[in-house]
């Protein structure tokens, strides 16, 4: 096993993370996937690519994002913790990025790849609309036409982001097939791609899909973990004891975790959406799914005994997906990362806690991470450090939260 020396050497040359990942796509797409891999290898070897990526992240996205000690949240948690307990809680502030979430990191990387490959049209899928907004943003920045596929149900419940995408010049195409959510949007984006292979680049929004997407999305998002590791060392002279991040497809989590995977002293916790509960409707593929093949990769999926995909549910549209990136499936199997799940209600409580203690309105996605942080922090001594990824801001979620709290606005 190649995991003996490093947890950071995945995937193998076929795009497999252990038994997960791979390239499960129609033959029409296979040559394009292979071409994308070649183009990515060439970009990795080209210092000019990294230089342009870094420059855009600094001056367009606003990186590095701050590393922030959440003192009042820490104190609030200590107040109900046993004597001497209550670890310090720190946040990686990726919600301060341009467009309000970590999604933009990946979009910048992929559109630079698309340009290298001479592609003239961009497509993407989106659920809550954050990835769609980030994609529309980089398309506007580089003057490329883009079509965003979005489930018809999500179009209805995420009108502000639909309008944002249109302002940015994107065409938003509602997808009525299936349940009209993220999974169906991804199906439709794949259908468009297969019919437009020669000029179109598909910017996948999470660390999933056929190889090399899980790898390249992880690499572009790993700026989160690289910055956080250096910032933590500079500020405290030590590494964090536990990393925590929310997981839908898992791109913000893998971006935070990956640069720390070989730091044996750093534990990691991925937080899935338990929705209405793991025995009811939820979106926790690792906790409640089994391995299967969907959207180009082998990974844990919510499915029935016949392999039909079941609908996910989470109050957070960004976590509302029945699969998970293949590297997380592998990290779970080998035990390097621990995974847990948090319900809609727990996430809502954490959302409000952060608003009141820190003056930060988080997105519902990282609210799941914060909900998982609270019990961990109380069970750890005060000299320990938890670092959570605050991967998005909550402006987009205020209507959902108001509705859930029974407030009319």
């Amino acid at each position, binding site marked *: 096993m190649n995991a003996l020396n490093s947890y950071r050497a995945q995937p193998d040359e*076929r795009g497999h993370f252990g038994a997960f990942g*791979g*390239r*499960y*796509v*129609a*033959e*029409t*797409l*296979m*040559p*394009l996937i292979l071409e994308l891999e070649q183009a990515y290898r060439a970009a990795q070897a080209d210092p000019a690519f990294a230089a342009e990526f870094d420059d855009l992240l600094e001056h367009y996205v606003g990186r590095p994002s701050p590393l922030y000690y959440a003192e009042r949240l820490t104190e609030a948690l200590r107040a109900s913790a046993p004597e001497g307990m209550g670890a310090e809680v720190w946040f990686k502030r990726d919600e301060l990025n341009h467009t309000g979430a970590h999604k933009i990191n990946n979009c910048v990387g992929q559109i630079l790849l698309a340009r290298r490959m001479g592609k003239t049209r961009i497509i993407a899928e989106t659920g809550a609309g954050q990835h769609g907004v980030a994609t529309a943003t980089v398309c506007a920045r580089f003057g490329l036409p883009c079509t965003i596929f979005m489930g018809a149900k999500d179009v209805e419940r995420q009108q502000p982001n639909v309008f944002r995408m249109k302002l940015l010049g994107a065409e938003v195409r509602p997808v009525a*097939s*299936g349940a009209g959510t993220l*999974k*169906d949007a*991804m*199906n439709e984006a*794949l*259908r468009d791609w*297969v*019919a437009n*292979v*020669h000029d179109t680049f598909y910017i996948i929004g999470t660390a999933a899909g056929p190889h090399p997407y899980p790898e390249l999305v992880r690499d572009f998002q790993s700026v989160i973990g690289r910055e956080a590791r250096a910032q933590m060392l500079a500020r405290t002279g030590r590494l964090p004891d536990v990393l925590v991040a929310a997981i839908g497809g898992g791109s913000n989590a893998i971006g935070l975790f990956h640069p720390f995977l070989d730091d044996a002293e750093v534990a990691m916790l991925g937080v899935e959406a338990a929705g209405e509960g793991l025995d009811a409707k939820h979106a926790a593929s690792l906790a409640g799914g089994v391995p*299967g*093949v*969907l*959207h*180009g990769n*082998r990974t844990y*999926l919510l*499915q029935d*005994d*016949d*392999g*039909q*995909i079941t609908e996910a549910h989470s109050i957070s549209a960004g976590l509302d997906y029945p699969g998970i990136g293949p590297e997380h499936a592998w990290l779970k199997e080998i035990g390097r990362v621990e995974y847990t799940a948090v319900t809609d209600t727990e996430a809502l409580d954490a959302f409000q806690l952060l608003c009141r203690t820190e003056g930060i309105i988080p997105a519902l996605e990282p609210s799941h991470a914060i909900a998982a942080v609270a019990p961990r922090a109380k069970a750890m001594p005060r000299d320990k450090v938890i670092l959570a990824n605050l991967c998005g801001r909550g402006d987009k979620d205020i209507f959902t939260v108001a509705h859930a709290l029974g407030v009319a606005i």
Partner: protein
Amino acid sequence: MTRLSAAFTRGPALVTFVTAGDPSVAATPAILDAMVAGGADVIELGMPFTDPMADGPAIQAANIRSLAAGITTAQVFALARDFRARHPSVPLVLMGYANPMLRRGPDWFATACAEAGVDGVICVDVPPEEDDALGVALRGAGVASIRLATPTTDARRLPAVLAGAGGFLYYVSVAGITGLQQAAQASIADAVARLKASTDLPVAVGFGIRTPAQAAEVARVADGVVVGSAIVDLVAQHGAAAAEPVRAYVATLSAAVRGATKDQAA
């Protein structure tokens, strides 16, 4: 000689597709029989999947209707087994997506195919690069792993597509999803000639073929003609009474395919 290879020895073969369980499991046997009665040489039975990402609107809707009516994998195999009992010599192929096929493991699936009398399997989203996920088990059970070649399958890649391929080679004539536009005849002729130079397998052409005239054109240059969405449309239109319209339509296709004069250039 296998049932599948025999089907391609009598001149160009007509391959017809229908989604299992659409509009109901009870309605499918009569539709399959109607395709045989109409003159189909190879029957493709679609295994429904919630996420048919290579299919156009017609077959997507058929998948949804079938799943809504409650089809199970066990029923798909029961349909196949009963078809085999009624039609001992007509080749039957399952077509679908990886996840329902792999849910109980590739060996389970391959054995179930062999026991039900299924001659071959077309899995849309298992390319040659992932052959060990399914193809190895199929061949081990004596079931043909039917591969797809497309307009994007170049000469460099073709040997990988052909390695382990069985039954026939399915040429997807357009880069796109099922049931929409048809490719230009000249590009089909060129592609088939190119494929046949590299393999002894029969080459069947599909995607976007709906009229007898189109079918006859393709039959002039290929070993087989695949028609799917047009039949699925008839099922959508006529529901449980679809068998007779399907038979009549398949008969027009069959007559056109059989009347086609082989292009010498091909």
